[in-house]
């Protein structure tokens, strides 16, 4: 097995009377890029700080590469950490910041310059050795923080929303670089963010958290296509949520009713306790809605329904459309240059939704 695996078992954390984490179980494979994703206050930073050792869990255990971490201080854990505010040492220059960890570990002076310049090169800061921290731009500080941790070649690098202070352009660029550095070094990266796009772009595995619990663990694709809860569906990507009812259930499929129409879905697409008569929420991604002209001859009244085009928003190559339908407002997403996307406001159209793209959440 590759170095840098993390096993979190039954971990809970309380601050006074407030429970911040609830029975978290998580297995992270060595060498992977894992993102802890969730809204603020969901416990993702607490979990990161528990792995780092700045906090001790109230319950449960954390192991790194099979070794129990209870009572092990951060400096004895095989981790590096990039802080949200970066926490660079303002009284040291770039070289000394990166050399800091090597020096405190008693590395002979002759063995320091080599790794420092190698890792400054890796993050694209060769030649910046003697700059002071105050003279660097936000992106450059980011790179110094990264090099400072990576030069010690930790098994695991923990990143606490390090990109959140940067503007979008720079953020995108650093995301790409971060991913490529992670691939080169094969270090386990555990990255905390509240930005689902960032998580989707960077991660091998996304851990979606809310209210101190892990809501879902999966690849970005799995989490997008098969969200495990209405919370995940709403948090990751745009989604339409329509109220419906489960009419009947058999061994392989369930019949769902929405606005007087009925259709069958495989049971795999239904999340929660499936029983006949239960109300449910039907999640539908905007891009799975297709549009036909209202007067089209091939319109099948059984699977399609009428709608009126509301606001149109251009997002680069994509067009986001708000529809008013009998089922309530729906958001659609299509390529701007697609024939179906030649829409004007207040136009009447027919919409249809591919049943296999839906996820149904049975209400408890």
């Amino acid at each position, binding site marked *: 097995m590759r170095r840098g695996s993390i096993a979190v078992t039954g971990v809970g954390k309380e601050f006074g009377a407030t429970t911040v984490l609830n029975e978290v179980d998580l297995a992270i494979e060595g060498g992977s890029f894992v993102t802890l994703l969730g809204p603020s206050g969901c416990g993702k930073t607490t979990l990161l700080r528990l792995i780092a050792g700045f906090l001790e869990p109230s319950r449960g255990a954390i192991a790194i590469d099979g070794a129990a971490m209870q009572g092990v201080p951060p400096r004895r854990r095989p981790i590096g950490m990039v802080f949200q505010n970066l926490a660079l040492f303002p009284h040291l220059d770039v070289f000394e910041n990166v050399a800091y960890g090597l020096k405190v570990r008693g590395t002979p002076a002759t063995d320091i310059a080599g790794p420092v310049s190698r890792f400054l090169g890796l993050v694209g800061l060769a030649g910046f050795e003697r700059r002071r921290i105050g003279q660097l731009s936000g992106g450059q500080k980011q790179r110094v923080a990264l090099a*400072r941790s990576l030069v*010690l070649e930790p098994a695991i690098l923990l990143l606490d929303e390090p990109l959140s202070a940067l503007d979008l352009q720079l953020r995108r660029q650093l995301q790409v670089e971060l991913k490529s550095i992670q691939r080169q070094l094969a270090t386990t990266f555990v990255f905390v963010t509240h930005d689902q796009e960032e998580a989707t772009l960077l991660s091998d595995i996304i851990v979606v958290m809310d209210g101190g619990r892990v809501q879902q663990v999966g690849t970005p694709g799995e989490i997008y296509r098969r969200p495990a809860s209405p919370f995940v569906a709403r948090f990751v990507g745009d989604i339409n949520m329509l109220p419906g009812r489960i009419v009947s259930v058999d061994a392989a499929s369930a019949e769902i009713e929405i606005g007087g129409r009925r259709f069958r879905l495989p049971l795999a697409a239904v999340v929660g306790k499936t029983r006949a008569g239960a109300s449910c929420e039907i999640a539908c991604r905007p891009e799975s809605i297709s549009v036909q002209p209202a007067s089209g001859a091939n319109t099948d009244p059984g699977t399609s329904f009428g709608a009126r085009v509301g606001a149109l928003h251009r997002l680069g190559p994509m067009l986001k459309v708000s529809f008013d339908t009998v089922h309530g407002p729906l958001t659609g997403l299509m390529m701007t240059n697609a024939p179906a996307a030649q829409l004007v406001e207040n136009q009447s159209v027919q919409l249809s939704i591919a049943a296999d793209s839906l996820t149904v959440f049975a209400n408890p």
Partner: protein
Amino acid sequence: MQTSATPRSLGWLLLPALLVLALFLGSVVLLFLNAFWTKDGFSLVYFRQIVERPDYHEVFLRTASISVVVALASAVLAYPIAWLLWRLPRWRNLLLVIVLVPWLVSLVVRTYGWLVILGPKGFLNEALAWIGAIQSPLPLIFNDLGVVIGLTHVLMPFAVIATLSVLLQIDTRLEEASESLGASDLATWCRVVLPLSLPGVFTGISITFLTSMGAIVTPILLGGLRQKMAGTQIYQEVVYNFNMSKASAWALCLLLLSGLGLVVLRAVEGALVPKADR
């Protein structure tokens, strides 16, 4: 946006500040006038005295060395207290009150307190004699040691506040970053906390050094009869001899010496603290 009153109509608010400034500048001008114009007209007689008389050299030397010792002792004693206040945010206000409470008592009363503790028949000597550690009382007072103890006690709170104010600006994440990079608590203190708090330590040294250079009450009460400091000499010239010209000449020399001390201090700070952090 709210419209504020025009600057002209608020000009009278500057009056108190101008008054203070006028009094301050006026006193400096008077100081110079007094120092160079004696009752016999322009004269450098008191400056020549200071330059020529070895007993006066001794007074200035004693003033400077006592001030240096007091400043260093205050810095060394204040640092752990400031560090503790920084480390214990829950207790910070209470501890700060304890540090500052002596200021509620008049300087004279506090200084007499030291007589009770350090005097020949004081608490400390009696206690040491009682346990048999000493045969005759230790000379803890009415000498330079007494002045150093008294001044350090009076001035140390300034150093605590100066150091604490800089410690409070240090981001606690820096310590965590240091720890995540493998540093022990001691290494973190030596490599991160101490260098970042040095500007506060130097501010404290400046304040205590300058205040100690001009001390009058403590040297009079706790110092030896013949071991004057510059402040006590000036006090004597003004209050007992009414020789304003001599007092002014002394004050100017003391000012010069203090300024020199500050220049040296800045140079030391410049060598120890990187430029970008000041």
